[in-house]
């Protein structure tokens, strides 16, 4: 199999638009402020860490496809363009076959809720402009249209571990020569409906939203930020395998602790939810970052932030290698290993 290198990364998070603001927030190591999110029918709001609209408004938001989109598409495009950097021009000129792999868990929930609410009130007036944006692959379609690329374009759904599956699939496309480069994006948008869904399971979970993107190429080490070395198997939560067992198995497939290695984990600071992952990585005594503690539970965006944070740290030559651990909410535990170039 070919060697796979990360040539760019992008992030949109409650810390701001770009990898820079996210890295700064992680370095400051202080949880971002929580904002109230009104919930119809409740006097008490839900809590949220939400992306604030960019200022000034980036040019891409004036593109015909993106004027009416919900936040998730804007998050996707923001992170994707940052990760691509100058190669965006090459893609648009047709010089580079760019694969696009979008991973989401909740997807376009804002417009889905809005559209379904219209349907319940009066289906005859439900907006035909809103419905198409509810489809899972709408954001991937928008970034493909913005860049003008007809190449491979998939949207995968699942729990946050799916982002690492997306990276593995991108590596497969690259190895097979189906594309010259590939963007893997994990994204979500916040909404009271999703927040309440998590509130039911834990009053302490604070959802966040945004996106993270990795830009991958094969066999080109020059200019790379990091190299993808491994992605573990998917350790599913099944009748005979709970989260604890799955997390331990994923952990066992990744390299052990070295003083110059980094762990980007998915801990939130909530012992009940963190338990399986915390137990799996109990012996890790080198450096560790936990983006969800700072940025919120961003679901698929969070696993992408973990990867982006790990790759950015490797690019700064702070560490020789980094493990990423994703113990998803209801599907799988999985991990990845990146190395400095």
């Amino acid at each position, binding site marked *: *199999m070919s060697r796979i290198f990360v040539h760019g990364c992008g992030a949109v998070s409650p810390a701001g638009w770009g990898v820079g603001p996210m890295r700064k927030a992680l370095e400051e190591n202080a949880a971002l402020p929580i904002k109230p999110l009104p919930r119809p029918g409740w006097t008490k709001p839900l809590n949220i860490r939400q992306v604030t609209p960019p200022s000034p408004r980036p040019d891409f938001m004036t593109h015909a496809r993106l004027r009416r989109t919900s936040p998730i598409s804007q998050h996707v495009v923001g992170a994707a363009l940052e990760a691509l950097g100058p190669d965006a021009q090459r893609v648009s000129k047709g010089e580079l076959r760019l694969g696009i792999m979008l991973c989401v*868990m909740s997807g376009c929930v804002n417009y889905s809720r809005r559209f379904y609410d219209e*349907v319940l009130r009066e289906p005859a007036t439900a907006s035909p402009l809103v419905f198409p944006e509810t489809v899972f692959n709408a954001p991937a379609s928008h970034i493909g249209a913005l860049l003008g690329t007809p190449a491979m374009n998939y949207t*995968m759904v699942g729990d946050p571990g799916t982002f690492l599956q997306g990276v593995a699939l991108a590596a497969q496309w690259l190895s097979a020569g189906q594309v010259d480069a590939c963007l893997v994006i994990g994204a979500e948008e916040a909404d009271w409906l999703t927040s309440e869904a998590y509130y039911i399971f834990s009053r302490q979970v604070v959802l966040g939203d945004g996106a993270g993107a990795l830009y991958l190429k094969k066999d080109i080490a020059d200019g790379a930020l990091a190299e993808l070395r491994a992605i573990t198997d998917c350790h599913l939560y099944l009748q005979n395998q709970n989260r604890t067992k799955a997390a331990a198995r994923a952990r066992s497939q990744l390299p052990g602790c070295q003083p110059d290695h980094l762990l980007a984990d998915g801990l939130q600071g909530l012992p009940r939810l963190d338990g399986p992952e915390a137990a799996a990585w109990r012996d890790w005594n080198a450096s560790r970052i936990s983006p969800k503690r700072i940025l919120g539970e961003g679901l698929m965006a969070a696993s992408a932030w973990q990867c982006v944070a790990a790759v950015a740290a490797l690019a700064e030559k702070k560490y020789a290698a980094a493990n990423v651990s994703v113990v998803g909410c209801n599907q799988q535990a999985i991990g990845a290993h990146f190395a400095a170039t």
Partner: protein
Amino acid sequence: MLFPSGQRSSAPPRVVITGAGIITAFGNGWKLNAAGFRQGRIALKPVTLFDVSRQRVKIAGEMSLPESLPETRLTAPQQKRLDRASRLLILAAHEAWKQSGWEPTDNLPVVLGTTSGGMALGEAFYRQAISAPHSHRSQPTRVVHYQAQSQALALADAFGFHGPLTLIANACASGANAIGHAWELVRSGAAQRVLTGGYDALCQLVFAGFDSLQALSPTQCRPFDARRDGLALGEGAAVLTLETLDSAQERCAEILAEIVGYGSALDTHHLTQPNPQGDAALAAMTAATQSAGLSPSQIDYINAHGTGTPMNDIAEANAINRWAGARAATLPVSSTKSSIGHLLGAAGAVETLICLMVLREQWLPPTSTLQEPDPACNFPVVQKPTGAEVEYALTNSFGFGGANASLILRRWS
């Protein structure tokens, strides 16, 4: 490990189908469906699953689900929690699994396509959240089980296997992309066997969505008809077991057909409207024939995406005309959506399975409602059930967002 994964060092293996399961409005299983398509029946009927009284259109290919599921490894509480989409998926998978003769294993990748997962549960969650904002009764179950990964996990538990679950949501091309991806996994050497397919259950949000776009036919879904005025929705699932030819032959499995080509392309024209000339559809069909090492002249039948909307069918007709050239004049094409409706994330998988029926039983399913073929079709649209000699069949699937996919199957003899 997902990466680096086992990779072939020699020529890609041939990929064959050794099990197939299908459930549509025609019923549960190959026999009922083959009979329905072979006779050109229409299975559309008034929707009973949700309120359509205020919709423009009130019919769809709604499935009458059997009261009980076949015996699997699911516990009684697990069975009780299954939503409609999960049931469709497990019913189709059960037929395929039994036919394949597969045993549970620790590394069986699953690749499924869906557009909505268990959306009906999501709808119920929202209705209760609005009508009884402080009641969380049944809400946790709905949160967990509306997600597509829950249906896939239920499938793994039902048959007792482990392995990566990949859920592709490329709108109406999801099922075809899932099978195409599964085919690539086997060809690349990353897996020896893959369980794949697509599923979707009818739900109010999606039904109302297509109605809001005025994409549903207020008369009758008539793909490729000059006076077509929209599509009909349906529900169902189809599941295939794919494996290398060597694997199938080693265990003396019955081989149903071979998948020989797959192509995928993105149409960047518009979120819901295809490029009128069918550029991306042409690219997908061309990629599929190239990967199969075939020319269009070798394809004997096309199961078209053929939704029955004015825009889809003209774009697809243009794409087929351009792709097939002179061959178009004698290339039979039909759309089975006229019989069972558009199954969205399941469509590509169900239509692949219909191609499998065509190859196995050597007949062509008709576009059962066709009256006056659109003159834009340079190809014969199959109007009546007919026998045929078919060595290669191609199926097209196109979706919102511009997802386009084509698969080619070869008869096994």
